């Protein structure tokens, strides 16, 4: 007879997901002496084995194409060299998309989740980001102000380590920064172009250590943070939070555990997590005094929606009906151009930290008569990067065959400067996820169905990005701007920037929100959500720093409530 294995022990806190939110929760709770059991759907991480840092392309037979030439056939989901991170298409774990809509859902199945490879851009949300209704009448106010959140940003920055400088720009609040990193040559050109166009170009704010803190080594400037950093100079929740928590003896990790449902008792409190043990394909249950869900915005919504009971017929903590709603992602658009001034530049090592050393914070906050609300920041690419498959195909295509190929490649190497706009999406009624009742994944868990619509706000912002990037490229004497530009065709697909947020939103009114200001479910006192699902908006500042700050705050509050006996 089939039997579900239910552990007799009641664990203090079960955390579901080990990315930025789960990692922070684990760190904070174990530091406070609370026993934590962490469920991760993927395997354990071994940085020495899993990270391909410092490997040259020729050190593998396929040089990075993938062992079966995947990159040559568009079948490589993510670069070969990157840290194990997850995929757009996870085998056996499909999702549905409403007819006519487009959405891409990135899932990570590894200890540390997406923090092993992410861009590590670490920007505070601003005062108006927490009160957008007050600011311009659009979106939803958070039940938290910037002033309330600021001390948690301090803690987050001081712990993970963020580079930066004090600039006094309202859209980009200053924080507790490590020393900034000097710009590369192409970035100096962008700084001068910005000066000419009245656009601020300031040192980037990145979670890489320009000096050693908390026993983590300082950066050695190999620029390969995306491959995972063996010495954890680039932040990841796995290395900086979870491995140290293991040392306390307060943490138990259960890998290969795909959460299926949260079970409730007669009083409507969560009393156990049901999960599929992937190795044996059996259902197991783990009893808990409190549960923190940090499975990523959409997975967390899916888990709650799949947790139906007599008491919660619409899914757990979903009396308001907002779970899955108001799904947002960042607005993305990129443009690059070739800058002749950089041709044949004297060669040098400009690896630095992985990603940009300077960036452009939103600079038109006070401008009247814009045709879109809020704004975007700009990330800058370029430099003398490590050659990869494809790096010089463009040069070769213009050079026929013979020695002219090498000449073209030498001349063009490092001349491309690119700009990536990362803008705010206003939450809307037509972008959401729900359970697709006609389909389950290989574990038998009902899958999500996505609905996605950009509004004119976002489309018009992309036009502004294109015009700005063209001006910047031209100011540097560059060329390459696309003359026939269609913003509708050029805007990123929903989910593509991998900043999903908003699906289990917080608020003061239980009729309009699922969580209170501490990310604790209004209807279920011992349930906390600690990823980007609680966000009431998705400002033009990447989500991770705010996930860490908000999860830290939520975890301390949970610990406090447990101590008081309220949970």
């Amino acid at each position, binding site marked *: 007879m089939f039997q579900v294995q239910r552990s007799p022990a009641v664990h203090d806190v079960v955390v579901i997901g080990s990315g930025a939110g789960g990692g922070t929760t684990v760190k904070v709770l174990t530091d406070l002496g609370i026993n934590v059991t962490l469920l991760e759907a993927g395997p354990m991480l*071994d*940085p*020495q084995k899993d990270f391909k840092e*410092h*490997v*040259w392309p*020729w*050190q593998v*037979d*396929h*040089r990075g194409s993938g062992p*079966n*030439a995947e990159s*040559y*056939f568009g079948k490589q989901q993510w670069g070969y060299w990157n840290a194990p991170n997850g995929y757009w298409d996870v085998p056996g774990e499909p999702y549905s998309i409403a007819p006519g809509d487009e959405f891409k859902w990135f899932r990570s199945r590894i200890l540390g989740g997406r923090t092993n490879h992410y861009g590590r851009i670490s920007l505070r949300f601003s005062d108006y980001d927490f009160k957008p209704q007050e600011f311009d009448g659009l979106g939803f106010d958070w039940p938290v102000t910037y002033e309330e959140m600021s001390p948690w940003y301090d803690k987050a920055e001081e712990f993970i380590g963020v580079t930066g400088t004090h600039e006094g720009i309202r859209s980009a609040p200053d924080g507790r920064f490590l020393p900034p990193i*000097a*710009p590369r*040559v192409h970035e100096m*050109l962008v700084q*001068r*172009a910005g000066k000419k166009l009245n656009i601020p170009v300031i040192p980037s704010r990145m979670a890489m250590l320009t000096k*050693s803190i908390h*026993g*983590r*080594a*300082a950066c*050695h*400037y*190999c620029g390969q943070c995306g491959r995972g950093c*063996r010495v*954890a100079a680039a932040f990841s929740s796995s*290395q*900086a939070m979870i491995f140290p928590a293991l040392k306390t003896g307060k943490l138990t990790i259960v890998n290969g555990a795909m959460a299926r449902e949260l079970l409730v008792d007669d009083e409507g409190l969560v009393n156990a997590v049901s999960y599929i043990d992937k190795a044996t394909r059996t259902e197991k249950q783990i009893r808990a005094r409190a549960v923190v869900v940090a499975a990523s915005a959409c997975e967390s919504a899916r888990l709650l929606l799949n947790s139906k009971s007599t008491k919660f017929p619409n899914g757990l903590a979903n009396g308001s009906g907002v779970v899955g709603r108001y799904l947002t992602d960042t607005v993305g658009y990129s443009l690059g151009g070739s800058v002749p*001034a950089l041709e044949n*530049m*004297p060669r*040098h*090592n*400009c*690896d630095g930290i992985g990603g940009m050393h300077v960036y452009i914070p939103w600079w038109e906050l006070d401008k009247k008569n814009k045709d879109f609300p809020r704004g975007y920041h700009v990330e800058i690419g370029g430099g*003398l*990067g*490590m*050659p*990869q498959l*494809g790096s*010089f*195909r463009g040069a*070769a*295509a213009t050079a*026929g*065959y*013979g020695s002219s*190929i*090498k000449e073209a490649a*030498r001349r063009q*190497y490092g001349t491309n400067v690119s700009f990536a706009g990362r803008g705010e999406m206003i939450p809307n009624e037509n972008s959401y996820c729900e359970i697709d009742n006609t389909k389950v994944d290989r574990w038998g868990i009902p899958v999500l169905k996505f609905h996605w619509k950009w509004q004119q706000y976002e489309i018009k912002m992309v036009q502004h990005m294109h015009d700005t990037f063209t001006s910047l490229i031209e*100011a*540097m*004497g560059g060329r390459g701007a696309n003359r026939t530009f269609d913003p509708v065709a050029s805007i990123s697909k929903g989910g593509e920037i991998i900043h999903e947020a908003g699906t289990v939103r917080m608020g003061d009114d239980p009729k309009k929100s699922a969580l209170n200001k501490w990310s604790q479910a209004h209807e279920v006192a011992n349930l906390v959500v600690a990823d980007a699902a609680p966000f009431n908006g998705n400002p033009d500042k990447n989500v991770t720093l705010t996930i860490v700050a908000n999860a830290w705050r939520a975890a301390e509050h949970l610990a406090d409530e447990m101590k008081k006996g309220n949970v």
Partner: protein
Amino acid sequence: MNEPNDVSRRDLFRIVGTTLLSAELITAQDAKDAHAGMSMPMSPNGPKSLNGGPNYIPKHFNANRFKTLRHLGDLIMPADATSPAASEAGAAEFIDFLCSRNEDLANTFDGGLAWLDEYMIHKHGTDFLSSKPAEQTAVLDLAYGSRGGSPEVAAGGQFFTWARNMVVDAYYTSPVGVKDIGFMGNTIVPAPFGVPQEAVDYVLKRSPFGA
């Protein structure tokens, strides 16, 4: 940067063998040693040549086809005053390996090389490898001409594009290519990071902003 020595090498093994495998955070000192250790495969820039030589046993192609591919690669990217030809980048070996792993790719190269030999036999009475140098370059002139390929070789067009792309890819992902292009990274840089003034001056002088 110091060259790695036996001490750092030993430390690296210690770190790899114990600390990290037991999933713990390493200390700053251990990390410093690991930094030194990790520089080992980087200095010098790998083997001088990736050419498998005359005794290389192809994984996918027969011996003659492999020789044809290696020769074609050297015509696409020949040696010049600065750097050697594509065969030193192991271009044919790279394509051979991937053809042994991917049927679509194998079909492209098998078909393309067969077409090329047929074309040459029909035109000159000998296969590509046995043809005169001028006959060989004549077909490449047609394939890679400024107008993007002559109709006469259109049937081989897709193959020529694949061949150039993969030869160029192989070249710049090899030690000779990395050296030729002048990539100087993938190493350990002591803080603080900075770029040389010479490069800054060179670019600013050439830019609209002036020095």
